[in-house]
């Protein structure tokens, strides 16, 4: 994961698709960062390094996720 060192990103988001239960909370909280797969409804991370502006939304998504599948580093 050294590639993130190249640019100065403050936010790093990871998702655990194995834990995800497809509740959709993250898509409602931060639609620019999270989506759901049409095939199985499981989380898709649209932006691994969203801008600082998205911090509040992304942190809310992580907090609301009922399966604790989202981590903000």
């Amino acid at each position, binding site marked *: 994961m050294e590639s993130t060192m190249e640019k100065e990103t403050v936010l790093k988001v990871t998702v655990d698709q194995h834990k995800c*239960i*497809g*509740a*959709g*909370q993250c*898509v*409602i*909280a931060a*639609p620019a960062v999270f*989506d*759901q*797969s*049409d*095939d*199985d*409804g*499981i989380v898709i991370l649209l932006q691994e390094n969203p801008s600082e502006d998205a911090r509040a939304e992304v942190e*809310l998504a992580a*907090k*609301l996720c*009922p*399966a*604790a599948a989202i981590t903000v580093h």
Partner: protein
Amino acid sequence: MTDQLQGQELFPFKREAGHPFDLPSDLTRRREEEPVSRVPIWDGSTPWLVTRHADVKSVLSDPRVSMNYLTPGMPPENPFIKVRRQKEARESSGLSMDGALHAQLRRVLTPLFTVKRLSKLRPKIQQIADELIDNMLAGPKPVDFVESFARPLPMLVICELLGVRYEDREMFKESAERMMMTSTTEAESMELITKVHAYFGELAELRKREPGDDVFSALVERMEAGDITLDHVKSLAVVLVIAGHDTTVNMIAMSTLALFDNPEQLAELRANTEDPVLVANAVEEMLRYLTLTHIGRRRAIIEDIEIDGKVMRKGEGVICAENAANRDPAVFPNPEQIDFHQEQTREHLAFGYGVHQCIGQQLARFELQAAFSTLHRRIPTLQFAGSSLDSLPYKDEFIVYGVDSFPVTW
């Protein structure tokens, strides 16, 4: 332990007369004084009652608790739910399972309930809401609000979702309502289950030949592909009817009443019906404030858990009171008021928490957002036409708290 509890009020506790929107006082007291305690319930058992927001979240996301109704200690809500969920557990056909079995079945459903897919239903939901209001405005007043708006809206939406034929919709409505009643006996419950399952069996045959664009057809398609059995299709359809109907009916009805009781917040909503952010916040806040699933989430302990200094042992039952949690001042700064601007509102547990959290929650949100905005935009002078909000026959004894009817005018 059991002896000490004899003679105590059974859980769920009753609300005090004249306080239809407040928690039963003993529930608030327990959250403050003994957040993890024992309570007697209808079947003679004495499960744990967990009342704080953090503890409810922790129990509901703990793999050492089971949602399988055959697990020793499980404290069922009533005889009907016990029968239905034990049947599901034996057949592995419902979502009341644990671990990998649950995850596997839930993943059959998740693609049908994505935000994107449910968003496509929004114009249809809007149309249903508008037509119901058209009919209300064209008819006599005062009128029964539940009968003319709150009850038909979710039923029409669930019928769209499942592709239920128009001619079957009355049977559907009646069965769904009887299934939710705590007064339904075990024998009646078995009959209802058999009847509804038989109906879904017929509908499955039809959808094999004539598939639609609905969730039920998608389930039948999964069955044809060998992912799930006919039993799964039937049980999941029943779950969707039960979970999708009474909950939303009563949320629309009770939110309307609670806003009549809070004229300042009602005025704020009326002034902002075109603001999707405020409407969405209002829906979340009413979900938190009302938490109509007032009899708690039921689980059984499969490995000892210590919480707040109490040890819940393997084989014991636990009830997570999300209505008490949703008024926990440790999380919500304004717990006893309706406040559309409370930042923490979205942390409410009205849809549960953990891997069993409501799969239909986004559908519920879209329905409630359409109901709130359409109702208050199109009838800005809506008012209660009964004698007193406090004296309505609120359904304390039902699985979902609510009210069967009340008059409105405008």
